[in-house]
């Protein structure tokens, strides 16, 4: 028996497929091609084989940027823990709780550049943090936080956590509200205190949300750019202290006009992200199975 080929579904799919092919597939393939070329955007790309990839291996700034991006992943467990705690705190029927929920969600709907600029005001030499520390006698001279290589990345990570907690807390809040109240009642009857109740009921109940947040927040951490761009005044920080892999990619492509090399960095980032995501999901799923 022969099956008749149906055109109609493909006809309906065609517009979406055309858009995906034009705006997703073609750029990815173009980046793969450019990664094997010497391309300065102005003149035609020149085929150089695997030169760009060989250069990556010997480029200390690339490895520094990759290390910084890996360090940035610390944001993920931090943001998960804080978001769950916040979700538990606001998952109550209290007067004015809607206002509180709205307030902590504000960073999520604010522009990242706007947030970055306001954070600069806090950490500048004459900023709010130094003023507070000097007025309380903790320090006698202002600290130049944003040009100290030890502080640039932690400040950017703190910013990411602050900006993300509200958003992820909403996801966990939705998860908490789906956990049947009976489970908490049973835990209470079994003698659980408040901490044990959340440890044994809330956390297992939030596992799907934890997997989801772990994946999207770690991908966001690997792709961080805006915070670094604003906090370091477009420089990546002294001694590359805040240079992440996407920031380095941007600098190579749009400051140094090395679009071919930047494409190779993009491919390396793609592979690293892919491997990391698959690994992370497998680990989290294995935890679920046990």
């Amino acid at each position, binding site marked *: 028996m022969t099956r008749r080929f149906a055109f109609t579904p493909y006809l309906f799919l065609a517009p979406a497929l055309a858009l995906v092919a034009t705006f997703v597939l073609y750029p990815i393939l173009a980046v793969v091609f450019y990664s094997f070329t010497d391309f300065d955007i102005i003149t035609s790309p020149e085929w150089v084989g695997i030169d760009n990839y060989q250069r990556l291996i010997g480029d200390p700034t690339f490895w520094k940027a990759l290390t910084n991006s890996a360090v940035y992943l610390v944001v993920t467990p931090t943001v998960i823990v804080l978001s769950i705690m916040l979700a538990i705190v606001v998952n109550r029927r209290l007067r004015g709780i809607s206002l509180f929920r709205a307030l902590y969600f504000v960073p999520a709907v604010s522009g990242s550049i706007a947030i970055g600029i306001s954070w600069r005001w806090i950490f500048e030499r004459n900023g709010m943090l130094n003023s507070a520390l000097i007025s309380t006698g903790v320090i006698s001279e202002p600290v130049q936080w944003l040009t100290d290589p030890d502080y640039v990345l932690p400040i950017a990570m703190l910013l990411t956590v602050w900006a993300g907690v509200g958003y992820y807390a909403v996801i966990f809040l939705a998860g908490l509200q789906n956990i049947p109240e009976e489970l908490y009642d049973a835990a209470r009857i079994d003698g659980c205190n408040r901490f044990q109740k959340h440890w044994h009921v809330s956390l297992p109940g939030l596992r799907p949300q934890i997997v989801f947040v772990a994946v999207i927040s770690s991908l966001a951490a690997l792709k961080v750019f805006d915070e670094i761009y604003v906090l370091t005044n*477009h420089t990546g920080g002294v001694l590359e202290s805040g240079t992440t892999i996407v920031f380095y990619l941007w600098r190579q492509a749009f400051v140094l006009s090395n679009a071919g090399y930047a494409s190779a960095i993009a491919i390396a980032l793609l592979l690293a992200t892919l491997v990391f995501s698959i690994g992370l999901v497998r680990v989290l799923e294995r935890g679920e199975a046990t």
Partner: protein
Amino acid sequence: MRNRTFPTLALVFVLALVACTPNVDTSPSASDPVEPSGSEVAANSPDASAAPSDAPAAPCAAESSQEDPIMEGVEEGAEISFWTYFLSPTFDEFILCTIARFEEAYPGVTVNWEDHQATYLDDYRNSINSDTQPDVANLSNNEGWVREFAQAGALLNLTDNAPQEIIDQYFPNLFADNLVDDDSFQFPWYQSIAVELINTRIYEDAGLDPAEFPTAIDELPALCQTIKDETGTLCDIRLTVTDYLSQMTYEGGVDVMNEDQTEFTFDSPEAVEWLQMYVDMVAAGTVDTDALTTALDRVALLIFSAGQAAFYQTGPQLIRVVKDNNPDLYENLALAPLPLGKSGVTQPTSMAISVKADTEFPNASMALAAFFTGPRAMLDFAKIVPVYPSTPAAFDDPFFSEEPELIEDSARPLAREIIENQQNILPPIPEKADVNDIVRQAVEAALFADVPAQEALSDAVEQANALIR
């Protein structure tokens, strides 16, 4: 709960707007020439940027002491595209009036004008790649755009193609800015001059006299030390992070390449001495390192305009930022000439207009570029914003010899002499952006990682030479 959803979302939206509004910075960066609101301009940066003045503007005035340059052989019926950089909407009237006069002078020729802003450089690069490059474009000399695009073969050689009488209308040093193989690829447009703005209150509190501001760069470390010791204020000076080679050339008198232009030599004793000066200032804690290493002129400018620095190098047109942000400081401002480096000269800070290499209408395109950069248009422009002409003739107008009333205009009578003596002494640098990035890393290693200046620069020279071999 459900009936609270809408008010809650509305509240979130309003709070987000409130949170965002004061923080959004729409002003152009240091490399942006003109901010649409006219409140910020970067003259310390290589760009000769412009911000509108309070002076009465008469861009469409029928009368002028100056003539527009007219070229022979302009193609009939030519339709040419023209891009400017960050000039709209503030200067729309000036540009549209100049285009109208041009089209009247060349009947049948049409100009299609577009102003591109923050993405200008990307747009221009992409236009070359996609074969939509404008016939005539406003490029920055100091950012190295002219040389970059000329070396890529994208610009018309004006030394070979422009009529001699057009070339002769410019200051020779400005037409010769950014030569490639001894040829010029730009008509110089509006110029800026850098000066030192002095906060007289801090300066005098430090026991110093603004009239005796240092005349040489190497006096700055001692000055900064005195200011810190006496007032606790740090110096607000900048390294040109996008062009270290230029800065060490002018300030340190460094020959960055050998005579044959085959090897880099910026690890010479002069270069080490130049870098050591900054290393010592950072070690002594006399400079704001955020301002020192920023890529944005705005950062250092705002420190000065907030009254937190004793002096700041910028263009007189930026005094308006001080006036707007801190009227009290404006009342306590003094101006001093820029201290000279070991080269003994200052760098031209100019915008330019260039023509597409393979334009269909080379004569019409050159005519438009010459028209906008000519004495008549430049005089009109200088009357609405404190920028200066690239043509000696324009300075003959009494406007430039009148005694200025405002401090921001006080450099006007000196402008011609300053501009005439500016020189671009930086040779063409192969792989310039990459080499500058190597130098940036070396400078940061010396400033912040205790690497000796000699070692940092010698390593950088080795890497830079490997790049061009």
